[in-house]
């Protein structure tokens, strides 16, 4: 049985681990923390801006890749459709809506219509492409949602050819009466229990008008989100759409739960806590991944390795105080802005070349050096550590993570 060590428990690492384990590999995920899925909005972005608004990621992909040969998608374009179809099926309780053909257009918490390829059904109900009448409802205890700002910005968004009207309202129903600051996950856990659903639905009922779609922050349940959404719509007789909030994100927590369950069913061994600090090699291949445990360093044997430690945000790629770039586990060559070109722009929302730093890979997601040669034949990279993307600008983060995790896994399965 092929022993694979996956380093990192973010989306890319978990996707790789799950796909490998489902196809019979013996997989150990090792990560110093729980990954950052709890920050994810729970949607699957593939390509939203290139840099113009992308209506169809599938159609736009060929042109995008042709114009951006350094982009991760240049290596992943032919894997992405299979990867997404497989992934959506792995987490059925997320009830993803979308086909990768046409982007959905969903309001963000600040009231911007935003493109994404797949979204849970509980969010897709606010798809603005069809227009409609909405009421944005805030929760007085939740400090991370401003229904009036959302409503007024959405009214100004100027969507061509559709009519959108949005009101705003607020309800006081709270799982912690008398407490001013209530986190989204506290609402969500309370809504997992039927008792609070009744009070919550009653409060919502009082502020809605017939024909409106209710838009609320994404707190409708955690472990039983599907059940909560169904019950709420039934009680209110109106469609409800969740809007992802700034972190922590309840839909991201749901996705983590569903993936954890799938990994556990597939027999993936997960070791959280020890940080991967290096490797051992034998005969030109990586033979072990070294992890620093509480009291000693342990060397995990591996026939193949997936490096999914992320980019700058997760610490897989580090920029030191002298401006040098480092990959933390294998000391891989990191590709940054070419010497003599600007690294960062003084305008915050401009393209920031430095942010796209990472490791360059080949078609099997294997890191390559400046000469284009593979660094280790059995080392594969996945996720935000791959060079060439600014996923938050492109709205491409989950697409890259899923496609790269899947491709890395396939490459390992095909080699062995």
């Amino acid at each position, binding site marked *: 049985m092929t022993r694979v060590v996956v380093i990192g428990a*973010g989306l890319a690492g978990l996707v790789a681990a799950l796909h490998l384990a489902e196809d019979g590999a013996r997989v150990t995920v090792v990560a*110093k923390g729980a990954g950052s899925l709890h920050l994810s909005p729970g949607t699957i972005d593939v390509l939203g801006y290139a840099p113009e608004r992308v209506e169809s990621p599938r159609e736009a992909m060929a042109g995008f890749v042709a114009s951006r040969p350094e982009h991760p998608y240049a290596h992943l374009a032919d894997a992405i459709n299979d990867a997404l179809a497989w992934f959506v099926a792995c987490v059925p309780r997320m009830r993803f809506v979308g086909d990768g053909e046409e982007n959905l257009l969903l309001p963000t918490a600040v009231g911007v219509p935003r493109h994404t390829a797949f979204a849970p059904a509980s969010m897709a109900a606010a798809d603005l492409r069809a227009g409609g009448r909405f009421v944005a409802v805030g929760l007085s205890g939740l400090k991370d949602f401003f229904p009036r700002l959302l409503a007024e910005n959405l009214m100004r968004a100027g969507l061509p050819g559709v009519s959108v009207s949005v009101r705003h309202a607020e309800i006081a129903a709270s799982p912690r009466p008398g407490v001013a600051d209530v986190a989204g996950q506290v609402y969500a856990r309370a809504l997992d229990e039927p008792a609070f659903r009744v009070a919550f639905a009653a409060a919502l009922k009082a502020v809605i008008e017939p024909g409106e779609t209710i838009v609320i922050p994404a707190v409708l349940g955690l472990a039983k989100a599907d059940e909560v959404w169904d019950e709420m719509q039934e009680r209110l007789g109106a469609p409800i759409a969740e809007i992802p909030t700034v972190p922590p994100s309840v839909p991201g927590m749901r996705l983590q739960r569903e993936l954890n*369950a799938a990994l556990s069913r597939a027999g993936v061994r*997960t070791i959280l806590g020890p940080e991967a600090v290096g490797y051992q090699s034998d005969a030109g291949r990586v033979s072990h991944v070294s992890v620093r445990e*509480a009291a*000693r360093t342990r060397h995990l044997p591996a026939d193949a390795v997936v490096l999914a430690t992320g980019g700058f945000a997760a*610490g897989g790629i580090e920029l030191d105080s002298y401006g040098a770039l480092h990959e933390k586990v294998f000391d891989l060559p990191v590709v940054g802005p070419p010497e003599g070109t600007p690294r960062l722009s003084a305008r915050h929302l401009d393209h920031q070349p430095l942010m796209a730093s990472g490791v360059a890979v080949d078609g099997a997601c294997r890191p390559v050096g400046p000469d284009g040669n593979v660094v280790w034949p059995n080392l594969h990279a996945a996720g935000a550590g791959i060079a060439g993307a600014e996923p938050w600008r492109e709205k491409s983060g989950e697409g890259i993570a899923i496609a790269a995790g899947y491709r890395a896994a396939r490459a390992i399965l095909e080699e062995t």
Partner: protein
Amino acid sequence: MTHPLQDLMRDSLDHCVKCTICETYCPVAAATPLFPGPKYVGPQAERFRGIGPEADRSLDYCSSCGICTQVCPQGVHIAEINNQARAALAQDRGVSVRDKLIARPTVAGWMGAPVAPIANWTTSFGPFRVLLEKVLRIHRHAPLPKWAGRTFQNRTRSRRRAPNVRAPERQVVFFHGCAANFYEPDTAAHAIAVLEHNGLEVIVPKQGCCGLPLQSNGLYDDARAYVRKLVAQLAPYARAGHDIVATSTSCGLMLKREAREILGMDDDDLRVVSEHLYDICEYLVMLDDRGDLRTDMQPVEMTVPYHAPCQQRGHGIGTPALELMALIPGLEARQLDSVCCGVAGTYGMKVEKYDIAMEVGRGLFEQVRASGAELSVCDSETCRWQIAAATDRPSVHPVEILYRAYGLG
């Protein structure tokens, strides 16, 4: 007192990007608004500490389960920062008689052990518990263990052998912890039987308390003294190349990590002991990886819920108990997806924390009850007592299942 390692723990607050992942996992923040969460009391509040009087209040509600540190994707030592801040608070405001007492399991252990039947009667006697609650503020329903009478140390005097420098790999040293010594000697005896079944000679040196309860109650100086004494007892074996195996996952963690990272200790005895120390399940899986674990197991036709306790997770070794139980024919061990049982050592015994602890554990208890299993499995003793009391069925150490599968009893 400042120590490079302590600084390292505190300085890890620089890695905090405020992402709040720790707070989404924190079992106490989920149970009560009195605790604003590990990020708040940890890397966030820490920037406002160090000068003048201690400003904290809510920090006291942290149960020290350590989950925040385990899940933090940025490497912030949140639990360690919080633990150290709570110790500073204890120093500033004093430690109650109750906390001083429950922080010393050996004291209660020695008081009760010789008169176990009487002691056990009093602690299960309602009016006495009401009195205990009134006087010492130990909750009347908090699970207290039963004294076993003769201590495990006493039972294993014949195993106090010197290290064998010539064949250390055939010998292991057993570190049993206070709970096994006073309350659960059978679990310890069964662990020894399992190790012996695998061809190992088991040494049980004279050994004291690891000081963990002192540490969690903010009594760092006393805790350090306990650690120093204990590692001096174990270090000669480690130096001779012996592995040390612990059934108490929390005491094992204390020697592996917390004494260094929380108490800021850094001495040779501690270092060599921690390098050689293994949780028993971790050790047995390591034997299995080497092909040295006997797999002559009889079927155990059972489905058992398994809870990986917080302190076990702190080892960062995955869930070896599940891997071991997967080797047993007929047995299906299902990991519960609740993070904590609530008791967190001595936290759940305290009258002002008991309700919170029960709320923290509620989901876990419901899952255990709903499983319909006759028992549950968990690596940590205080958690087992809590789960057993809350679910009205025994909770056992994973090694007990192995003991049964090996047909040893």
